[in-house]
Protein backbone atom coordinates (compact mmCIF):
# COMPACT_ATOMS: atom_id res chain seq x y z
CA UNK A 1 0.00 0.00 0.00
CA UNK A 2 1.51 3.28 -1.03
CA UNK A 3 1.36 6.28 1.26
CA UNK A 4 -0.26 8.55 -1.29
CA UNK A 5 -3.24 6.24 -1.18
CA UNK A 6 -3.33 6.51 2.58
CA UNK A 7 -3.30 10.28 2.52
CA UNK A 8 -5.85 10.43 -0.23
CA UNK A 9 -8.07 8.37 2.02
CA UNK A 10 -7.96 11.22 4.49
CA UNK A 11 -9.26 13.76 2.02
CA UNK A 12 -12.98 14.39 2.65
CA UNK A 13 -13.74 15.11 -0.99
CA UNK A 14 -12.17 11.87 -2.17
CA UNK A 15 -14.01 9.97 0.55
CA UNK A 16 -17.32 11.53 -0.42
CA UNK A 17 -16.92 10.62 -4.07
CA UNK A 18 -15.73 7.06 -3.53
CA UNK A 19 -18.30 6.29 -0.86
CA UNK A 20 -21.01 7.65 -3.15
CA UNK A 21 -20.04 5.13 -5.83
CA UNK A 22 -19.80 2.34 -3.29
CA UNK A 23 -23.12 2.94 -1.55
CA UNK A 24 -25.62 1.40 -4.01
CA UNK A 25 -23.63 -1.81 -4.32
CA UNK A 26 -23.18 -2.08 -0.59
CA UNK A 27 -26.88 -1.44 0.00
CA UNK A 28 -27.89 -4.03 -2.57
CA UNK A 29 -25.50 -6.67 -1.26
CA UNK A 30 -26.39 -6.26 2.39
CA UNK A 31 -30.15 -6.16 1.84
CA UNK A 32 -29.90 -9.28 -0.32
CA UNK A 33 -27.77 -11.09 2.26
CA UNK A 34 -30.12 -10.00 5.04
CA UNK A 35 -33.15 -11.32 3.15
CA UNK A 36 -31.44 -14.65 2.45
CA UNK A 37 -30.20 -14.98 6.00
CA UNK A 38 -33.56 -14.14 7.60
CA UNK A 39 -35.59 -16.47 5.39
CA UNK A 40 -33.04 -19.27 5.63
CA UNK A 41 -32.51 -18.92 9.35
CA UNK A 42 -36.12 -18.42 10.40
CA UNK A 43 -37.87 -20.83 8.02
CA UNK A 44 -35.51 -23.44 6.64
CA UNK A 45 -32.88 -24.05 9.30
CA UNK A 46 -33.77 -27.10 11.42
CA UNK A 47 -35.09 -26.79 14.96
CA UNK A 48 -32.70 -27.11 17.84
CA UNK A 49 -33.27 -30.47 19.54
CA UNK A 50 -33.21 -28.89 23.00
CA UNK A 51 -34.45 -25.34 22.55
CA UNK A 52 -36.90 -25.83 19.69
CA UNK A 53 -37.67 -22.74 17.70
CA UNK A 54 -36.55 -20.28 20.35
CA UNK A 55 -32.92 -20.75 19.38
CA UNK A 56 -33.63 -18.90 16.12
CA UNK A 57 -33.07 -15.61 17.90
CA UNK A 58 -29.35 -16.28 17.60
CA UNK A 59 -29.68 -15.15 13.98
CA UNK A 60 -30.11 -11.64 15.40
CA UNK A 61 -28.34 -11.96 18.74
CA UNK A 62 -25.01 -13.38 17.61
CA UNK A 63 -24.42 -11.03 14.65
CA UNK A 64 -25.33 -8.04 16.83
CA UNK A 65 -22.96 -9.18 19.58
CA UNK A 66 -20.09 -9.85 17.17
CA UNK A 67 -20.62 -6.48 15.54
CA UNK A 68 -20.83 -4.68 18.87
CA UNK A 69 -17.38 -5.98 19.77
CA UNK A 70 -15.74 -5.39 16.41
CA UNK A 71 -17.21 -1.90 16.30
CA UNK A 72 -15.36 -1.07 19.52
CA UNK A 73 -12.14 -2.40 17.98
CA UNK A 74 -12.84 -0.14 15.03
CA UNK A 75 -13.23 2.84 17.35
CA UNK A 76 -9.80 2.16 18.79
CA UNK A 77 -8.23 1.73 15.35
CA UNK A 78 -9.83 4.98 14.23
CA UNK A 79 -8.55 6.58 17.43
CA UNK A 80 -4.98 5.46 16.77
CA UNK A 81 -5.12 6.60 13.14
CA UNK A 82 -6.56 9.94 14.24
CA UNK A 83 -3.96 10.51 16.95
CA UNK A 84 -0.89 9.30 15.06
CA UNK A 85 -1.56 10.57 11.54
CA UNK A 86 -3.92 13.42 12.56
CA UNK A 87 -6.40 12.21 10.00
CA UNK A 88 -9.68 14.12 10.39
CA UNK A 89 -11.66 11.40 8.66
CA UNK A 90 -10.68 8.91 11.37
CA UNK A 91 -12.38 11.15 13.91
CA UNK A 92 -15.47 11.34 11.73
CA UNK A 93 -15.51 7.55 11.64
CA UNK A 94 -15.05 7.31 15.41
CA UNK A 95 -17.82 9.77 16.10
CA UNK A 96 -20.25 8.12 13.68
CA UNK A 97 -19.50 4.52 14.65
CA UNK A 98 -19.91 4.95 18.42
CA UNK A 99 -23.73 5.32 18.41
CA UNK A 100 -24.11 2.42 15.96
CA UNK A 101 -21.95 0.25 18.21
CA UNK A 102 -23.99 1.26 21.23
CA UNK A 103 -27.22 0.32 19.42
CA UNK A 104 -25.77 -3.04 18.37
CA UNK A 105 -24.79 -3.74 21.97
CA UNK A 106 -28.29 -2.78 23.04
CA UNK A 107 -29.85 -5.09 20.45
CA UNK A 108 -27.57 -7.93 21.58
CA UNK A 109 -28.62 -7.33 25.19
CA UNK A 110 -32.34 -7.18 24.42
CA UNK A 111 -32.31 -10.28 22.20
CA UNK A 112 -30.14 -12.04 24.76
CA UNK A 113 -32.59 -11.35 27.52
CA UNK A 114 -35.57 -12.40 25.36
CA UNK A 115 -33.70 -15.59 24.55
CA UNK A 116 -33.04 -16.01 28.24
CA UNK A 117 -36.74 -16.34 29.11
CA UNK A 118 -37.34 -19.73 27.40
CA UNK A 119 -33.79 -20.94 28.04
CA UNK A 120 -33.13 -20.01 31.65
CA UNK A 121 -36.67 -19.08 32.66
CA UNK A 122 -35.73 -15.49 33.43
CA UNK A 123 -35.25 -12.32 31.44
CA UNK A 124 -31.97 -11.47 33.08
CA UNK A 125 -29.39 -13.99 34.07
CA UNK A 126 -25.98 -12.78 35.28
CA UNK A 127 -24.40 -14.80 32.54
CA UNK A 128 -20.83 -13.92 31.65
CA UNK A 129 -21.51 -12.96 28.06
CA UNK A 130 -24.54 -10.84 28.85
CA UNK A 131 -22.68 -9.14 31.69
CA UNK A 132 -19.75 -8.39 29.41
CA UNK A 133 -22.17 -6.95 26.88
CA UNK A 134 -23.67 -4.72 29.55
CA UNK A 135 -20.21 -3.45 30.47
CA UNK A 136 -19.45 -2.88 26.80
CA UNK A 137 -22.61 -0.78 26.59
CA UNK A 138 -21.31 1.30 29.51
CA UNK A 139 -18.00 1.75 27.71
CA UNK A 140 -19.85 3.01 24.64
CA UNK A 141 -21.88 5.37 26.82
CA UNK A 142 -18.66 6.73 28.31
CA UNK A 143 -17.25 7.54 24.87
CA UNK A 144 -20.47 9.15 23.68
CA UNK A 145 -20.80 11.16 26.90
CA UNK A 146 -17.20 12.37 26.68
CA UNK A 147 -17.75 13.47 23.11
CA UNK A 148 -20.87 15.38 24.06
CA UNK A 149 -19.30 17.02 27.12
CA UNK A 150 -16.33 18.61 25.34
CA UNK A 151 -17.37 21.54 23.21
CA UNK A 152 -14.21 22.03 21.15
CA UNK A 153 -14.31 19.55 18.30
CA UNK A 154 -10.60 18.84 18.00
CA UNK A 155 -10.22 18.39 21.74
CA UNK A 156 -13.25 16.10 21.83
CA UNK A 157 -11.82 14.08 18.95
CA UNK A 158 -8.50 13.49 20.66
CA UNK A 159 -10.02 12.80 24.08
CA UNK A 160 -12.46 10.20 22.71
CA UNK A 161 -9.64 8.62 20.72
CA UNK A 162 -7.56 8.21 23.89
CA UNK A 163 -10.58 6.83 25.76
CA UNK A 164 -11.31 4.32 22.97
CA UNK A 165 -7.73 3.07 23.08
CA UNK A 166 -7.79 2.82 26.88
CA UNK A 167 -11.07 0.92 26.60
CA UNK A 168 -9.75 -1.52 24.04
CA UNK A 169 -6.75 -2.36 26.22
CA UNK A 170 -9.11 -3.00 29.11
CA UNK A 171 -11.75 -5.01 27.26
CA UNK A 172 -9.84 -8.33 27.30
CA UNK A 173 -9.06 -7.90 30.98
CA UNK A 174 -12.69 -7.10 31.76
CA UNK A 175 -13.91 -9.98 29.62
CA UNK A 176 -11.62 -12.54 31.21
CA UNK A 177 -12.36 -11.36 34.72
CA UNK A 178 -16.10 -11.50 34.10
CA UNK A 179 -15.77 -14.96 32.54
CA UNK A 180 -13.84 -16.08 35.50
CA UNK A 181 -16.32 -14.50 37.90
CA UNK A 182 -19.05 -16.48 36.25
CA UNK A 183 -17.62 -19.91 35.71
CA UNK A 184 -21.05 -21.17 34.76
CA UNK A 185 -20.98 -19.53 31.36
CA UNK A 186 -21.83 -21.27 28.09
CA UNK A 187 -19.08 -21.54 25.47
CA UNK A 188 -19.26 -18.92 22.73
CA UNK A 189 -21.81 -19.93 20.12
CA UNK A 190 -19.79 -19.30 17.04
CA UNK A 191 -16.17 -18.83 16.21
CA UNK A 192 -14.66 -18.29 12.82
CA UNK A 193 -11.55 -20.35 13.52
CA UNK A 194 -12.82 -23.44 15.26
CA UNK A 195 -15.11 -25.98 13.69
CA UNK A 196 -18.55 -25.10 14.99
CA UNK A 197 -20.49 -27.69 16.94
CA UNK A 198 -23.68 -26.77 15.10
CA UNK A 199 -24.62 -28.60 11.92
CA UNK A 200 -23.89 -26.64 8.72
CA UNK A 201 -27.57 -26.05 7.95
CA UNK A 202 -27.72 -24.10 11.22
CA UNK A 203 -24.49 -22.13 11.10
CA UNK A 204 -24.44 -21.30 7.39
CA UNK A 205 -27.44 -18.95 7.69
CA UNK A 206 -25.76 -17.52 10.79
CA UNK A 207 -22.64 -16.78 8.76
CA UNK A 208 -24.80 -15.10 6.11
CA UNK A 209 -26.47 -13.01 8.81
CA UNK A 210 -23.12 -11.98 10.29
CA UNK A 211 -21.89 -10.82 6.89
CA UNK A 212 -25.21 -9.05 6.26
CA UNK A 213 -24.87 -7.24 9.61
CA UNK A 214 -21.36 -6.14 8.70
CA UNK A 215 -22.72 -4.86 5.40
CA UNK A 216 -25.52 -2.97 7.11
CA UNK A 217 -23.07 -1.55 9.60
CA UNK A 218 -20.78 -0.33 6.83
CA UNK A 219 -23.75 1.14 4.99
CA UNK A 220 -25.03 2.94 8.06
CA UNK A 221 -21.54 4.17 8.93
CA UNK A 222 -20.88 5.50 5.43
CA UNK A 223 -24.21 7.34 5.34
CA UNK A 224 -23.55 8.95 8.71
CA UNK A 225 -19.98 9.80 7.79
CA UNK A 226 -21.02 11.41 4.50
CA UNK A 227 -23.47 13.61 6.35
CA UNK A 228 -20.86 14.55 8.94
CA UNK A 229 -18.26 15.30 6.26
CA UNK A 230 -20.71 17.64 4.52
CA UNK A 231 -21.48 19.30 7.85
CA UNK A 232 -17.82 19.85 8.65
CA UNK A 233 -16.73 20.94 5.19
CA UNK A 234 -19.70 23.18 4.49
CA UNK A 235 -17.36 26.05 3.63
CA UNK A 236 -15.48 24.11 0.97
CA UNK A 237 -16.33 24.72 -2.68
CA UNK A 238 -17.02 21.12 -3.62
CA UNK A 239 -19.65 20.92 -0.87
CA UNK A 240 -21.31 24.10 -2.17
CA UNK A 241 -21.43 22.57 -5.64
CA UNK A 242 -23.03 19.38 -4.37
CA UNK A 243 -25.60 21.30 -2.36
CA UNK A 244 -26.47 23.54 -5.33
CA UNK A 245 -26.85 20.54 -7.59
CA UNK A 246 -29.23 18.77 -5.22
CA UNK A 247 -31.43 21.79 -4.46
Amino acid at each position, binding site marked *: MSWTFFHKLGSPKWFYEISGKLLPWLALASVLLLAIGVVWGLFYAPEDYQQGNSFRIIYIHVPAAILAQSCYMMLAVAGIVG*LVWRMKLADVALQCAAPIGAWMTFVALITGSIWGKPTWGTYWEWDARLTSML*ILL*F*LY*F*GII*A*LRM*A*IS*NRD*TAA*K*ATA*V*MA*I*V*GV*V*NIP*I*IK*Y*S*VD*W*WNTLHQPATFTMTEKPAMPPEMWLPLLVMVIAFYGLFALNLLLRMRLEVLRREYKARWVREILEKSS
Partner: protein
Amino acid sequence: MRQMIWLLLKREWQLTWRRPGDLLNPLIFFAMVITLFPLAVGPEPQLLQRMASGIIWVAALLATLLSLDGLFRSDFEDGSLEQWVLSPHPLTLLVLVKVLHHWLMCGLLLVLLAPVLGLMLALPWSVMPTLCLTLLLGTAVLSLLGAIGAALTVGLKGSGSMLLALLILPLYIPVLILGTGAMDAALQGLPVLGYLLWLGCLALLALSLAPLAIAAGLRIGVSE
Protein backbone atom coordinates in the same frame (compact mmCIF):
# COMPACT_ATOMS: atom_id res chain seq x y z
CA MET B 1 15.95 13.88 37.42
CA ARG B 2 16.02 12.37 40.89
CA GLN B 3 16.06 15.81 42.41
CA MET B 4 13.04 16.78 40.32
CA ILE B 5 11.07 13.74 41.53
CA TRP B 6 12.01 14.56 45.08
CA LEU B 7 10.93 18.19 44.70
CA LEU B 8 7.63 17.12 43.13
CA LEU B 9 6.91 14.75 46.01
CA LYS B 10 7.74 17.56 48.42
CA ARG B 11 5.42 19.94 46.60
CA GLU B 12 2.55 17.44 46.59
CA TRP B 13 3.14 16.71 50.23
CA GLN B 14 3.04 20.40 51.11
CA LEU B 15 -0.10 20.92 49.06
CA THR B 16 -1.82 17.98 50.75
CA TRP B 17 -0.91 19.01 54.25
CA ARG B 18 -2.05 22.56 53.78
CA ARG B 19 -5.44 21.31 52.65
CA PRO B 20 -6.04 18.19 54.76
CA GLY B 21 -9.72 18.16 53.82
CA ASP B 22 -8.86 16.70 50.41
CA LEU B 23 -7.26 13.81 52.21
CA LEU B 24 -9.83 13.24 54.93
CA ASN B 25 -13.05 13.66 52.94
CA PRO B 26 -12.66 10.43 50.91
CA LEU B 27 -11.97 8.56 54.15
CA ILE B 28 -15.08 9.92 55.81
CA PHE B 29 -17.04 9.12 52.67
CA PHE B 30 -15.67 5.56 52.77
CA ALA B 31 -16.78 5.11 56.38
CA MET B 32 -20.20 6.65 55.74
CA VAL B 33 -21.04 4.50 52.72
CA ILE B 34 -20.12 1.40 54.71
CA THR B 35 -22.30 2.55 57.60
CA LEU B 36 -25.27 2.88 55.26
CA PHE B 37 -25.35 -0.83 54.42
CA PRO B 38 -26.13 -2.29 57.87
CA LEU B 39 -28.80 0.39 58.19
CA ALA B 40 -30.29 -0.63 54.85
CA VAL B 41 -30.12 -4.42 55.01
CA GLY B 42 -30.22 -5.06 58.76
CA PRO B 43 -27.53 -5.80 61.32
CA GLU B 44 -27.47 -9.65 61.28
CA PRO B 45 -23.78 -10.64 61.48
CA GLN B 46 -24.09 -13.56 59.02
CA LEU B 47 -25.64 -11.38 56.33
CA LEU B 48 -23.10 -8.62 56.91
CA GLN B 49 -20.17 -10.98 56.84
CA ARG B 50 -21.43 -12.43 53.58
CA MET B 51 -21.66 -8.96 52.04
CA ALA B 52 -18.71 -7.32 53.80
CA SER B 53 -16.04 -7.74 51.12
CA GLY B 54 -18.37 -6.44 48.42
CA ILE B 55 -19.44 -3.46 50.51
CA ILE B 56 -15.89 -2.52 51.45
CA TRP B 57 -14.64 -2.85 47.89
CA VAL B 58 -17.47 -0.87 46.32
CA ALA B 59 -17.03 1.85 48.95
CA ALA B 60 -13.26 1.95 48.43
CA LEU B 61 -13.77 2.15 44.68
CA LEU B 62 -16.20 5.07 44.96
CA ALA B 63 -14.05 6.87 47.51
CA THR B 64 -10.97 6.61 45.28
CA LEU B 65 -12.95 7.78 42.28
CA LEU B 66 -14.31 10.83 44.10
CA SER B 67 -10.91 11.74 45.49
CA LEU B 68 -9.43 11.61 41.98
CA ASP B 69 -11.85 14.10 40.50
CA GLY B 70 -9.83 17.10 41.63
CA LEU B 71 -6.42 15.50 41.10
CA PHE B 72 -5.41 17.72 38.17
CA ARG B 73 -8.12 20.36 38.23
CA SER B 74 -6.48 22.94 40.46
CA ASP B 75 -3.21 22.55 38.58
CA PHE B 76 -5.14 23.05 35.37
CA GLU B 77 -6.97 26.14 36.58
CA ASP B 78 -3.97 28.02 37.96
CA GLY B 79 -1.83 27.30 34.90
CA SER B 80 0.59 24.87 36.56
CA LEU B 81 -0.26 22.15 34.05
CA GLU B 82 0.89 24.35 31.17
CA GLN B 83 4.28 24.57 32.85
CA TRP B 84 4.31 20.79 33.35
CA VAL B 85 3.57 20.20 29.68
CA LEU B 86 6.30 22.63 28.64
CA SER B 87 8.88 21.12 30.94
CA PRO B 88 11.72 19.25 29.24
CA HIS B 89 11.12 16.44 31.72
CA PRO B 90 8.82 13.69 30.46
CA LEU B 91 5.23 14.44 31.41
CA THR B 92 4.57 10.72 31.91
CA LEU B 93 7.08 10.67 34.75
CA LEU B 94 5.66 13.80 36.38
CA VAL B 95 2.12 12.44 36.34
CA LEU B 96 3.27 9.04 37.55
CA VAL B 97 4.87 10.63 40.59
CA LYS B 98 1.77 12.71 41.23
CA VAL B 99 -0.57 9.72 40.98
CA LEU B 100 1.69 7.57 43.15
CA HIS B 101 1.64 10.30 45.76
CA HIS B 102 -2.14 10.29 45.61
CA TRP B 103 -2.15 6.52 46.04
CA LEU B 104 0.23 6.70 49.02
CA MET B 105 -2.01 9.26 50.69
CA CYS B 106 -5.51 8.09 49.81
CA GLY B 107 -4.96 4.37 49.25
CA LEU B 108 -2.84 3.89 52.34
CA LEU B 109 -5.35 5.63 54.57
CA LEU B 110 -8.15 3.49 53.13
CA VAL B 111 -6.08 0.39 53.87
CA LEU B 112 -5.55 1.51 57.45
CA LEU B 113 -9.22 2.25 57.99
CA ALA B 114 -10.59 -0.84 56.25
CA PRO B 115 -9.90 -3.40 59.05
CA VAL B 116 -11.83 -1.28 61.55
CA LEU B 117 -14.81 -1.10 59.23
CA GLY B 118 -14.37 -4.79 58.40
CA LEU B 119 -14.66 -5.56 62.08
CA MET B 120 -17.90 -3.60 62.23
CA LEU B 121 -19.16 -5.74 59.33
CA ALA B 122 -18.38 -8.92 61.34
CA LEU B 123 -15.34 -9.98 59.32
CA PRO B 124 -13.06 -12.31 61.30
CA TRP B 125 -9.52 -11.19 62.13
CA SER B 126 -8.05 -13.97 60.01
CA VAL B 127 -9.05 -12.28 56.73
CA MET B 128 -7.75 -8.82 57.64
CA PRO B 129 -4.28 -9.32 56.12
CA THR B 130 -5.93 -10.35 52.84
CA LEU B 131 -8.22 -7.35 53.00
CA CYS B 132 -5.33 -4.95 53.54
CA LEU B 133 -3.08 -6.50 50.90
CA THR B 134 -5.75 -6.65 48.20
CA LEU B 135 -6.80 -3.08 48.97
CA LEU B 136 -3.20 -1.91 48.85
CA LEU B 137 -2.61 -3.42 45.40
CA GLY B 138 -6.12 -2.67 44.18
CA THR B 139 -6.13 1.01 45.10
CA ALA B 140 -2.92 1.47 43.09
CA VAL B 141 -4.76 0.25 39.99
CA LEU B 142 -7.81 2.34 40.93
CA SER B 143 -5.69 5.49 41.29
CA LEU B 144 -3.83 4.96 38.03
CA LEU B 145 -6.91 4.13 35.96
CA GLY B 146 -8.97 6.87 37.56
CA ALA B 147 -6.27 9.42 36.84
CA ILE B 148 -6.80 8.74 33.11
CA GLY B 149 -10.40 9.82 33.50
CA ALA B 150 -9.39 12.77 35.66
CA ALA B 151 -6.95 13.87 32.94
CA LEU B 152 -9.50 13.51 30.14
CA THR B 153 -12.13 15.51 32.04
CA VAL B 154 -9.72 18.10 33.42
CA GLY B 155 -11.06 21.02 31.39
CA LEU B 156 -14.71 20.31 32.09
CA LYS B 157 -16.27 22.43 34.75
CA GLY B 158 -19.29 21.20 36.67
CA SER B 159 -20.15 17.97 34.91
CA GLY B 160 -16.63 16.57 35.29
CA SER B 161 -17.09 14.27 38.26
CA MET B 162 -20.15 12.48 36.89
CA LEU B 163 -18.44 11.98 33.56
CA LEU B 164 -15.33 10.71 35.32
CA ALA B 165 -17.44 8.02 37.00
CA LEU B 166 -19.10 7.08 33.69
CA LEU B 167 -15.75 6.72 31.97
CA ILE B 168 -13.84 4.90 34.65
CA LEU B 169 -16.25 2.65 36.58
CA PRO B 170 -16.42 0.01 33.82
CA LEU B 171 -12.62 -0.17 33.88
CA TYR B 172 -12.70 -0.80 37.65
CA ILE B 173 -14.64 -4.05 37.28
CA PRO B 174 -11.65 -6.45 37.07
CA VAL B 175 -10.16 -5.01 40.26
CA LEU B 176 -13.49 -5.33 42.02
CA ILE B 177 -13.88 -8.95 40.90
CA LEU B 178 -10.35 -9.92 41.92
CA GLY B 179 -10.49 -8.09 45.24
CA THR B 180 -13.80 -9.56 46.34
CA GLY B 181 -12.79 -12.96 44.95
CA ALA B 182 -9.71 -12.94 47.14
CA MET B 183 -11.82 -12.00 50.17
CA ASP B 184 -14.30 -14.80 49.54
CA ALA B 185 -11.45 -17.28 49.19
CA ALA B 186 -9.91 -16.04 52.43
CA LEU B 187 -13.25 -16.35 54.24
CA GLN B 188 -13.47 -19.97 53.14
CA GLY B 189 -9.90 -20.62 54.21
CA LEU B 190 -8.65 -21.11 50.64
CA PRO B 191 -5.26 -19.83 49.42
CA VAL B 192 -5.30 -16.26 48.14
CA LEU B 193 -1.84 -15.98 46.63
CA GLY B 194 -3.15 -16.41 43.08
CA TYR B 195 -5.54 -13.48 43.46
CA LEU B 196 -2.80 -11.31 44.88
CA LEU B 197 -0.51 -12.17 41.98
CA TRP B 198 -3.23 -11.29 39.50
CA LEU B 199 -3.84 -8.00 41.26
CA GLY B 200 -0.10 -7.39 41.17
CA CYS B 201 -0.14 -8.06 37.42
CA LEU B 202 -2.91 -5.55 36.92
CA ALA B 203 -1.00 -3.04 39.04
CA LEU B 204 2.14 -3.50 36.96
CA LEU B 205 0.19 -3.20 33.73
CA ALA B 206 -1.51 -0.02 34.94
CA LEU B 207 1.81 1.32 36.20
CA SER B 208 3.42 0.93 32.79
CA LEU B 209 0.56 1.97 30.50
CA ALA B 210 -1.65 4.38 32.43
CA PRO B 211 0.93 7.23 32.65
CA LEU B 212 1.01 7.37 28.85
CA ALA B 213 -2.76 7.80 28.68
CA ILE B 214 -2.77 10.28 31.58
CA ALA B 215 -0.09 12.41 29.92
CA ALA B 216 -1.93 12.27 26.59
CA GLY B 217 -5.16 13.30 28.31
CA LEU B 218 -3.51 16.24 30.06
CA ARG B 219 -1.86 17.45 26.84
CA ILE B 220 -5.27 17.37 25.18
CA GLY B 221 -6.85 19.22 28.10
CA VAL B 222 -4.16 21.91 28.10
CA SER B 223 -4.30 22.40 24.33
CA GLU B 224 -7.89 23.63 24.41
